[in-house]
């Protein structure tokens, strides 16, 4: 019998980590599938997570595809489904449908330098690419991460970021000065201009709030990056995840299926409606 694209597989949460507490909490969930190994996927792809009785939410997979023990999802608590997810604990069961979307073209980036630029929860989809390039370090040129959030409490993967500093340059920022904060104070695009990543043989990958993406792209262009060197992921409200319910389209593209990853050169061609 053909596989039913709308029927989720059952996943079990094996670990829950509180990334950010407070008014806009973020938790990372590590999930294994009950009926077999996790599905293969590409960096930047997402999955529809079900909390049965509440609904589904499309969340990007933040673990690397080279890591096959579990799927990691970092979830910002936003509404009905994500609130219910945030109440869940290891052992609890959810539905998983996926992987969906086009993923980052990491094979094309071999030999290039990569600048990762994230804001807030936007680091989650980038994390998958970042981890993958670190696991295949020799295949890539120079790597660096520029990441910021509103306050130091809103930064995700804190421990991992500290560990990461030993491997690649990590430039953090927060919007407003705090006692004890010695790194950049300001918005992420300003930090990009401050750190001046080179555009030579480079790819920039950015994800975060739409306004941040807009200004990051402007900053990168100022630094000499071409439209085809800049990659981002787009977000839209989704229901089916497979390009049929008609909801997430930008022009003739469905973000769930033809996206969410776009180079700025590609995104510019589409109607600016997202």
């Amino acid at each position, binding site marked *: 019998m053909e596989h039913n694209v*709308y029927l989720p597989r059952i996943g079990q949460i094996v670990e829950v980590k509180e990334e950010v507490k407070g008014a806009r909490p973020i938790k990372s969930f590590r999930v294994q599938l009950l009926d077999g190994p996790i599905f293969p996927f590409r960096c930047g792809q997402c999955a529809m997570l079900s909390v049965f009785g509440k609904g589904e939410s499309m969340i990007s997979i933040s673990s690397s595809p080279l890591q096959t023990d579990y799927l990691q999802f970092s979830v910002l608590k936003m509404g009905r489904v994500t609130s219910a997810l945030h109440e869940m604990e290891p052992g609890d069961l959810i539905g998983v449908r996926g992987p969906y979307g086009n993923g980052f073209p990491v094979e094309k980036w071999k030999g290039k330098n990569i600048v990762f630029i994230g804001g807030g929860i936007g680091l989650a989809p980038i994390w998958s690419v970042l981890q993958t390039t670190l696991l295949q370090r020799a295949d890539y040129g120079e790597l660096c991460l520029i990441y910021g959030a509103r306050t130091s409490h809103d930064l995700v993967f804190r421990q991992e970021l500290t560990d990461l500093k030993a491997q690649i340059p990590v430039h953090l920022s927060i919007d407003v000065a705090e006692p004890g904060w010695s790194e950049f104070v300001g918005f992420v695009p300003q930090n990009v201009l401050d750190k001046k990543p080179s555009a030579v043989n480079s790819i920039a990958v950015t994800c975060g709030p739409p306004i941040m993406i807009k200004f990051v792209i402007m900053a990168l262009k100022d630094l000499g990056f071409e439209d085809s060197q800049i990659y981002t992921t787009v977000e839209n409200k989704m229901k089916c995840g497979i390009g049929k319910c*008609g909801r997430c389209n930008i022009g003739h593209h469905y973000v769930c299926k033809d996206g969410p990853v776009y180079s700025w050169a590609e995104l510019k061609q589409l109607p600016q409606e997202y």
Partner: protein
Amino acid sequence: MKVFFPKKEAFGWTLTEAAADGAIPSDYSYAVVPPKKLIFPQEEIFFEFQQTADEGLQLRETLPELPPQVIVGVRPCDGRAVAALDQVFSGSFEDPYYWRRRRATILVGLACNTPPSNNCFCSSLEGSPSSEEGLDVLLTDLGDRYYVRGLTEKGKELIRAQSSLFSDPTEEEKKLRNKISQEGAQKIKRHLEAARELPPKLKTMFDSPFWEEAALSCIRCGICTYLCPTCHCFDINDETRALAPLKGRRVRTWDTCQFPDFTMHSSGHNPRPNKAARLRQRLLHKFLYFVELYDRFQCVGCGRCLDLCPVGIDIIEVLSKARNHGA
């Protein structure tokens, strides 16, 4: 086997489950709710879920099990609409619910001797009152009998199963049928000129103030989209029946890009925050994006949205104005 036959109600015609007893009434126009309802129903239950302490979480898939269904009296535009929907629900992800119903369906079309609506414009969009696309059988009313064409294997088998009811057409009958087909096309009153000029023109009009003016009287209901034979947008919701133990089902329902919260993010950000943007989406989807994806219009010129819009928004008028905008 179930048969759906045109039935006259106070408000218009419907395709209702009934024994087909006799010819399709001569005053039959078109079914207000298009045949898509029988292949892509307004409610489709995807699966039921249950979580108990003993048995854990269980999902029970509820794929439709249905006997063959023959829909009689499908107008050729609605047949073409089903062909368009077939494209949407196939591709890299095949939709099993749609295809179970689709494969169980036999569409018996009825050619239009006269346009069913004042607002029909199928011939402007690469259709015709005797188009065969999407149908399994096409009937043409010759006055006292039907000229019958079996189009697909399913359609031909239906005819073979009752072969005693049919005879080979005479030359006279063939000529009459051709005459009726030609005259049917000539009787169409409304035309959307140069439709193929629309996609490139619309592509330049995304930021135009044209849409604001066109959408002024729209009341953002769902009539144009729900009654449209090619519209397919849907919603998926979990309905909880009991909490402890958890019991419920996941349900697909029709949805419309005309409702304000269709594209609204949980953060409150809405890529289409006003009627102008939503009207633009509907028309661009049908006359540009669908063309870019499948090289065909997502409109078959049935005229329902024109006939039923509460405020008389006329898609032919709006598109003609768009085509000439700024010229």
